[in-house]
């Protein structure tokens, strides 16, 4: 088990490295000049050069990349100066050469070009919104999807079954930016008098007098929008997997034992049928945690996806690469967790 996790983490690092290299190169191939954006009106050459050298943009590409990696690594080499000490907050391990130190530190994702805020700060401020949105969406999908899937399987070929299938096909095929626009307009605007919901909104709203307030109603529409696709997939998966399991020999054994229908379905069949569903659900969890770019953007939901899109628009390179790395890390960790859950559900799976 520990060996399994260690190996998967090792692969995870390789993946992160690849992701970083690709994003880094892509970004430098993109048109647009962050220096010009930062310099704004004061666009004399001296200022521009100063900004560029401050950001390290005047260095050759490979060097920039290595410096970047050095900044992100837990163990890194830095010039031992008080400024660096303050910038990276590192704990020196040992001296290397005269002026350099090998140090242990938290990954330093640099500062936003735009706001000069630390990228780690930006992520930690916005991750909560994304997290709750993902959880809420998945909650809706599971709570509705699994019972619907079971119901469809038990009443195979009835109108109820066919209705659910048709609906889930629609749910899978409608792109999230379309459903987001429709849902937000319909329930958050035209019907907002009846639903009492807003077009956009945040989970936490700072009221001028009452301070920070929780606004749970604001999560409803984006969560439903985000949940539609996993919901549809879960309905179909649960249904087909349940149908498959119900024809298995061990179900006949359970019936021959004299068990009632409820026990046969919910004890003997469901646990087997849920295996593929769990994999799918956890896969979705990873996707949703990574931020739902369109949904967050349309509902103005200040999460990771929202921040990333904004950063791409502004060529805010540190934020883009920081967010991307963060998303990739979440993906990798969630997937390892999924495999562990899977092994617990299915005794035949052993972690290696």
């Amino acid at each position, binding site marked *: 088990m520990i*060996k399994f996790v260690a190996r998967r983490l090792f692969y995870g690092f390789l993946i992160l490295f690849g992701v970083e290299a690709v994003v880094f190169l892509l970004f430098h191939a993109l048109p647009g000049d962050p220096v010009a954006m930062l310099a704004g009106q004061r666009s004399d050459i001296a200022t521009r050069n100063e900004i560029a050298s401050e950001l390290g943009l005047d260095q050759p590409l490979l060097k920039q990349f290595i410096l970047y990696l050095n900044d992100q690594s837990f163990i890194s080499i830095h010039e031992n100066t008080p400024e660096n000490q303050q910038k990276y907050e590192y704990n020196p391990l040992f001296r290397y050469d005269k002026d350099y130190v090998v140090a242990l530190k938290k990954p330093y994702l640099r500062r936003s070009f735009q706001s000069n805020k630390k990228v780690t700060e930006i992520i930690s401020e916005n991750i909560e919104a994304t997290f709750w949105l993902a959880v809420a969406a998945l909650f809706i999908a599971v709570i509705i999807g699994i019972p619907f899937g079971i119901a469809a399987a038990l009443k195979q070929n009835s109108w109820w079954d066919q209705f659910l299938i048709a609906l889930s096909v629609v749910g899978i095929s409608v792109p999230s930016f379309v459903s987001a626009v429709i849902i937000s307009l319909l329930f958050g605007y035209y019907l907002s008098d009846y639903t009492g919901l807003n077009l956009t909104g945040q989970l936490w709203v700072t009221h001028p007098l009452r301070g920070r307030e929780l606004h749970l109603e604001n999560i409803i529409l984006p969560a439903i929008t985000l949940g539609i696709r996993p919901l549809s997939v879960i309905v179909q998966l649960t249904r087909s997997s349940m149908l498959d399991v119900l024809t298995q*020999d061990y179900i*006949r054994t359970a019936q021959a*034992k*004299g*068990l009632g229908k409820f026990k046969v379905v919910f004890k003997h069949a469901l646990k087997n049928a849920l295996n593929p569903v769990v994999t799918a659900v956890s896969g979705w969890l990873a996707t949703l945690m990574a931020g739902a770019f369109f949904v967050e953007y349309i509902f103005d939901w200040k999460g990771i996806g929202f921040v990333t899109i904004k950063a791409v628009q502004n060529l805010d390179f540190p934020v883009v690469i920081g967010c991307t790395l963060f998303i990739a890390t979440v993906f990798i960790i969630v997937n390892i967790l999924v495999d562990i859950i899977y092994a617990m559900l299915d*005794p*035949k799976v052993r972690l*290696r």
Partner: protein
Amino acid sequence: MTAPPKKTILEARQLSVAFPSKKQENRVVDELSFQLFSGETLGIVGESGSGKSMTALSLMQLLPRRAVLHPESEIILHRKNGESIDLTGQKPAVMRQIRGNEMSMIFQEPMTSLNPVFACGEQVAESLILHQGLSGKQARVRTIELFREANLPRPEKIYTSYPHQISGGQKQRVMIAMAMACNPSLLIADEPTTALDVTVQKNILQLMNRLREQHDTSILFITHDLGVIAEIADKVMVMYQGKIVEFGSVWDIFSHPQHPYTKGLLACRPRLDVSLSRLPTVSDFMQVNEKGALVEKKGKYNSVGEAILFNAESPTELIEKRMQVIKSGPILKIKNLKTYFPLNLGFFSGGREFVKAVDNVSFEVYPGEAIGLVGESGCGKTTLGRSILKLVEPTSGFVFFEGQLINYMKKRQLRQMRKHMQIIFQDPYSSLNPRKTIGDTIMEPMKQYKIGRNKNERIERVMQLLEKVDIPRDSFYKYPHEFSGGQRQRICIARALAVEPKLIICDESVSALDVSVQAQVLNLLNDLKNEFNFTYIFISHDLSVVKFIADRILVMKNGKLVEMGYPDALFARPKEPYTRSLIDAIPKGDLEDIKKAQLQRKLSAQ
């Protein structure tokens, strides 16, 4: 003294099951009536599709959704509490009390009949908790007792094991423990030993016999194997196309079979006592007349004995055949062949361990010879067959085919070599591509090896081949699903023949077939051998089949060749105790054995 009057446990009257379609009724079970007494074993024999399993499922009221029980059918169960009820159309709640409690069932496939996500013990205990109201702890104690009764090794360990962690025979024992958990008055066993090795089968049959004696349970035993019936049953019911064609005591059926179908079944089983040049088949005994009714075919054989006598081979014929074979040099020579599979022990564990599937095997095969390769499942016989063809890469050793070493051949050469060596697999259902017509399937290798000058010539040749294996010419354009299992296996044979091979490896090629169909396929293989002078390596777990087809038998155990010899000598005087145990485990089904078994049963009943 007279036996005490027996209590009736179950009566079936006019039992009919159909799978209705828009056009017709499609009866699979047709007006079956029979009685079952306490402590009695009733055997149902018939080929696949004869309605045996549907009969069993209808008794349990577990028919598949599309199946319909005829309204006139009656199934009377005399319950433990003295009540007699008709199970047809009974309320689900009542059926639930009966299932697993008064009637229980064991299925054919132990591999899939246990729920993979629950521990074995839990699944047995569940039944005890349900029907006998035991607490979890009591159920556990009782389950372990049941496991011990079922001769399971280390019952405490098995209790917490998951089904995939134990062997097939052990799974079937768990199933038996589960079925016997609540002391049912009737145990229905649907081909419980068909998927198991002969040695395991023997133990399971003994176990069932013992449990029946101890608990006075009646058993309804379904099988296609008359040999098994002879070992376990008191009475036999022979079914053909949903109907009972013959019913009687085991002794009567085996000594004086009346119906031609029964005679055919008895005659077509490969025998251990006589060597035959050709197996009699069911169609030697009966035919379907113009009205669609079964009638006896007159003229060919009048009795089972005559059929066997007629086909027996004399020792002089045998010896002559053997001399003929070894005149020429060997066509296939295998020297110190080893095929090891590494055990995946993980990354950091030192020293690698191997499963020695084939361990230092050497033998020679002469042209025109049929070699039988036998052993229990897992002994490495399939891997050996595949290693010879290099379908599995051997670890070391040499395979010479016609003097050429094929181990280090280049891909191209090897492909040319494969033309001469063909393999026929076990499962005729999965070894034909369902999306290709039969003709295309057979023609494909011919194109590869450039046999026949053009397409028309190839088509003509395929049609000839089809005729050769008794499939109509016009089947060329049909798809595999339109054929029965036996026909499919014959098509697979035609495909192997298409490239005019010299050596054919048959990997359990008749194991999935009914006895009657098996006889036809075996005869076909034998005829082809005589006609084209093929060399066969015939891999099987069934010694009686191997004895019929093989000129020489190799016995394998744990990857090693333990014994080799001519069938008659090997069966009469096996050198290895392992070979002996394999031979002893074969259900014999001759009259002497039946007499003995019946006598023993009477003695123990007193």
